[in-house]
């Protein structure tokens, strides 16, 4: 019976552990930063510790913006590692390259990749999911529903690796390439954000539609009857009466789905590539936060190195974002629920 306490313990461990590792990472960042600054000012050449050979097959162009990154002029040859500055770079830096000799720790490219994928996913998943929820709750006969719902459940139960395979082998060559590359003349990479986004969008359809359908069906019958009694058409009833009545629950399901899309790992890792860059072009290879974590742990990085600790920092960011979304969704559900009785 104490097991529930372990559940609480889990989250405590998770938060403290990731947090302590984040701190450690920040210190590491500061150290590397210091070494880097020393390198730039060319005072203490010998101080440049362990130019790590990178075992990753990352694209060859080494970050050349090292000098361009705004650096405060440091008076001392060996600058003090400051947590604050490291954190600042982590939060606002536009370059992510902990695996190169010259390290940069700006989470923005990863964040951008994640949000790009999640954005495309919501563009695809939310309208389709909502529309199918409307259909299932307002239009479908019980028999249709009894057929469609299990199929959606199957769709929800397919492992994410399979979706990743699907994105790479089917969506990019047979769906995206013909439409965007041949017809519209975009350059579509083998690994691209769009295919990951589309796939994740498909993945979140079942979440949205089953949750939204529950909420829509919970709207009392009297409301619908009253609307019909006033001469509304079926469309008016579904869109102008039932939908607003269920809006809080639907919104909560959206948020939940978006948080799933942000945390989605395997499909994005497989389909979106591993090239962290700050771009909004969905046809380029990007790297999301989850993909970065996977890629680092697939390579052999020794424990305690910067790469290793950096995955904790990234995971912490990821965790905070999804947690915030989940809590927001619960708050929305509770605060804006309309109570009927």
């Amino acid at each position, binding site marked *: 019976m104490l*097991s529930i306490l372990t559940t609480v313990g889990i989250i405590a461990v*998770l938060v403290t*552990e990731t947090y302590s590792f984040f701190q450690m990472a920040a210190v590491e960042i500061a150290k590397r930063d210091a070494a880097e600054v020393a390198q730039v000012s060319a005072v203490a050449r010998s101080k440049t510790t362990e130019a790590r050979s990178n075992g990753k097959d990352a694209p060859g162009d080494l970050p050349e913006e090292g000098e361009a990154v705004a650096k405060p002029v440091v008076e001392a040859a060996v600058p003090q590692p400051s947590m604050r500055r490291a954190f600042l770079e982590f939060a606002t830096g536009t370059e992510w390259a902990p695996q190169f000799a010259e390290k940069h720790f700006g989470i923005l490219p990863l964040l951008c990749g994640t949000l790009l994928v999640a954005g495309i996913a919501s563009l695809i998943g939310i309208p*389709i999911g909502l529309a199918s929820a409307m259909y299932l709750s307002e239009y479908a006969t019980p028999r249709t529903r009894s057929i469609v719902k299990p199929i959606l459940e199957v769709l929800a139960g397919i492992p994410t690796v399979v979706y990743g395979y699907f994105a790479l082998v089917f969506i990019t060559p047979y769906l995206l390439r013909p439409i965007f590359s041949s017809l519209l003349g975009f350059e579509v990479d083998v690994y691209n954000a769009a295919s990951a986004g589309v796939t994740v969008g498909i993945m979140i359809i079942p979440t949205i539609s089953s949750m939204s359908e529950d909420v829509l069906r919970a709207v009392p019958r009297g409301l619908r009857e009253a609307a019909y009694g006033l001469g509304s058409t079926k469309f008016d009833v579904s869109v102008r009466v039932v939908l607003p009545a269920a809006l809080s629950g639907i919104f909560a399901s959206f948020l939940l789905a978006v948080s799933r899309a942000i945390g989605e*790992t395997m499909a994005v890792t*497989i389909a979106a590539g591993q090239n962290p860059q700050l771009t909004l072009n969905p046809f380029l290879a990007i790297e999301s936060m989850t993909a970065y*974590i996977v890629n680092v742990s697939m390579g052999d990085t020794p424990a305690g190195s910067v790469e290793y600790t950096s995955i904790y920092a990234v995971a912490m960011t990821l*965790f905070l974002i*999804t947690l915030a979304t989940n809590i927001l969704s619960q708050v929305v559900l509770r605060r804006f629920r309309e109570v009927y009785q």
Partner: protein
Amino acid sequence: MSQEVSGRSDWPKPKVPLVVVLRNQFGRAFEWICLASTWVGMVVLVVLLASVIWKSWGWLSWDFLSHFDSFRPQRAGILAGIWGSLWLILLTTLISVPVGVGAALYLEEYAKGTWLTRLIQINLSNLAGVPSIVYGILGLTVFVRMFGLFGNNTVVDANPFSVTGRIPLPFGSTIISGALTLSLLALPVVIVATQEALRAVPSSLRHASYALGATKWQTIRHQVLPAAMPGISTGVILAMSRAVGETAPLVMIGIPTYLAATPGDISNVKDLVTNPQALIDVPFSMFTALPMLIYNWVRQPREDYRSLAAAGIVVLLVFLMVLNSVAIYIRQRFQKQIRW
């Protein structure tokens, strides 16, 4: 105009205003849109299955099922993955079901509605929304490395195969680490499903039991649990089938993609009977899992590996479908028996 004049002898056709016509058309169009998007899911499912099966055609053979992975795609197989996944899921079930059901029983039957239980409840639903990769990182820190407390800081445990009765203390990338990690992942799902099943048991049943003089434990043991059993087992099976397909936590805890050995060297059922000693080794041996092999093959650029991945996916999906149909069977069967 002429219709209005034509008078009362024959009923005039009611003139429908254009707005109403348009509105009806619009409503119908909306219905079609909704129907179409409902179909999107099904079309995707069919296309997905078709493309996977088409790709794996000719690759799925007995050799594929009974060989280890190989660097030559033609000779690669998934034996290690199948056994790894089976052991993994068995251990995960053994760990997460008692804990999960216990927690749910406590929350539903014993706990009072204090702020603590409310907090736990909120916490649970949040945990269910945590990305699986974060659990993977947790598993890496806690189980695989044990916070680095025991010194051994290498990623791969040096000699994990020769463990007989000896427990390596940082668990390393062994089955027990994987199972514990997946249990953490599955626990919120199991707890919530069990809670719902328990809540569905009518309180009249409990009251009747109490009225006959049963204690709280007797009531739970003999009335509530059996009544909630179909719900619980359905929830558990669904959670487990989710856990089978999880790849990200396994990647995180660093299990190898290539491994030419099955856990405890048990590679068919006969070994299980002849060499029960190996069972002790199983939880502490290195392993690889089906989704892990698939992921590894998908990453390879060569076309042959894609086919291999497709064949692996087919096996995985068949496995999942078996699990799911067991769940559905249980649900159907017990729903008929129990009636109140």
